[in-house]
């Protein structure tokens, strides 16, 4: 078994276990910490795929910002950090069927994808993926428009957040 496969299997196990723990654990802060573990596992997967930039950004954005935001929201808003209501509703089996259907569809799509059995080629020496990514984001033929649109969207969200947060003196 190649080394990448061992790392992948370990990571996949970590992600799955953590993801299950996120939704089953009663303590909300523990759930958020398990979420951090799951996101970290995804970052390791990116690193195994030689996507350094995505791996690091995954940690910076999801663990450094979003998970911390979750933890703060939970700690600041809830008095009782343990959920006492039952975790399942009566209609849980509908959700289970839907989830299985989605899983089946995804597996079907991926298996029928051409080149699904191919081993990933190593990135040839001298190719800087980071430069290529940066250029792709700002060249007009490639992703310039989506990149700029998402920047404007984020800026608008930022301005909106500031507008909502500022207390106006009447």
């Amino acid at each position, binding site marked *: 078994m*190649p*080394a990448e496969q061992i790392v992948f299997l370990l990571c996949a196990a970590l992600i799955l276990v953590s993801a299950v723990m996120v939704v089953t654990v009663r*303590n909300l*802060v*523990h759930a958020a*910490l398990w979420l*951090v573990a799951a996101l970290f596992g995804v970052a390791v997967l990116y690193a195994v795929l030689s996507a*350094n*930039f995505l791996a*690091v*950004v995954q*940690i*910076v954005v999801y*663990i*450094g*910002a979003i*998970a*911390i935001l979750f*933890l*703060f929201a939970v*700690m600041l808003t809830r008095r009782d950090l343990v959920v006492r209501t039952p975790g399942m509703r009566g209609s849980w089996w509908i959700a289970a069927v839907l989830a299985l259907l989605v899983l089946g569809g995804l597996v079907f799509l991926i298996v029928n994808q051409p080149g699904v059995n191919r081993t990933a080629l190593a990135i040839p020496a001298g190719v*800087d*993926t*980071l430069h290529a990514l940066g250029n792709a984001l700002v060249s007009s033929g490639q992703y310039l428009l989506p990149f700029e649109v998402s920047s404007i969207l984020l800026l608008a969200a930022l301005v909106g957040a500031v507008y909502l947060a500022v207390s106006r003196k009447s």
Partner: protein
Amino acid sequence: MTFWNDPINFLSGWLSGILTAWGLPATLAMVLTIFIGIVLLVMFAMTLDIFLVWVERKVVARFQDRIGPNRIGPFGLVQPFADIIKLVIKEDITPDGADKVVFNLAPVMAAMAVILLWAILPISSKIYGVDLNVALLYLVAAGALGTMAIIMAGWASNNKYALLGMYRMVANVIAYEIPMVVILLIPTILADSMSVKSITEAQASTWYVFLSPLGLLIFMISAIAELGRSPFDLNEAESEIVAGFHIEYSGMKFGWFYASELLHAFTFGGFASVLFFGGWQVPFLLADGFHFGSLVVTLPGIVVVLVQALAFLLKALFGYWVIMWVKYSMPRIRIDQMLAFNWKFLTPLSLVLLSVTALLGQLQTVLLPWAFTLVMFVSNLLIIWITIEILRAYARRQRKQEERITAAAAQGAHQ
């Protein structure tokens, strides 16, 4: 490749050669060799950490007009080992209401977040963990894990002081991450790379401290804030919240927080040296020895590598000393001052500096090196001057307003 030119790579090749000769598969031999390398690097960092405890205690003593530890060993050098023995044999207390697993995991995470940084620290041209092309983002990501450790410690302790200290520390770290990230982009622009190795190599002729002195200043300020050291040590304000997020930790668990804080400070000194003082670059030292104009002193590769490592450690110690100097000379600031200073002053200033550097950085290929250095240096001085003028005008306005209010009050009292 021989031992005298490239010792680390030679040793790792030799070791994996032995392991494959024993019949291990090549991949496993490689993994084992890398693992041994990691263990050695971590051991080096932790041994250095023990030494840093002594440095810290000696330096703070000098700043406070004392002698410092001087009883055990020459110059008190064995004192840290006595400290460690004391920490290890102390009773290990876990508070009753604590969340045990998270509580015990937090100090490990705190130390891990610092040691992770050593993976990308280029100690010398041939001694470094890994040459990542996203090294500077990796620095930020490791900081995120450190924040996580603080949150875990503060929350799991089940203590209101710990929780308050944690909130303050996280507010501090998240806020000062922004000028830090912006400033990290300045060496990136100048060296056209995020890899710390390329950034160091790009500083062979001019250190970036001459191109961007203001960048260094902002980097050091935000690094001190990230570390939560004075004047940004609201997280452990003794007079208000006793010890902050690590109030409930005793013995070696507290020791881990303390050790990782010291090592973190040293590591940030190391990054300041890599980003602005040329890392392992020594003036006149090239790969084959010293070059003074036409005079060439040839040195074997291993000596060059060791001289570079020494230069790097000295520069990092200098950065560490500056951080200590600030810590023991400045009083603590209030939390509103801390946030206002970041959002209203440091962040806009770093964004202005980044824009100016990005624009003028285009001249790098056009101008001669000395002219480019001059242009960058003068632009930095101009930004500093304009900032000071704006601050002065603002202070004058504030003073006038206060004077008017006191004058009006005095008049009111007269009538």
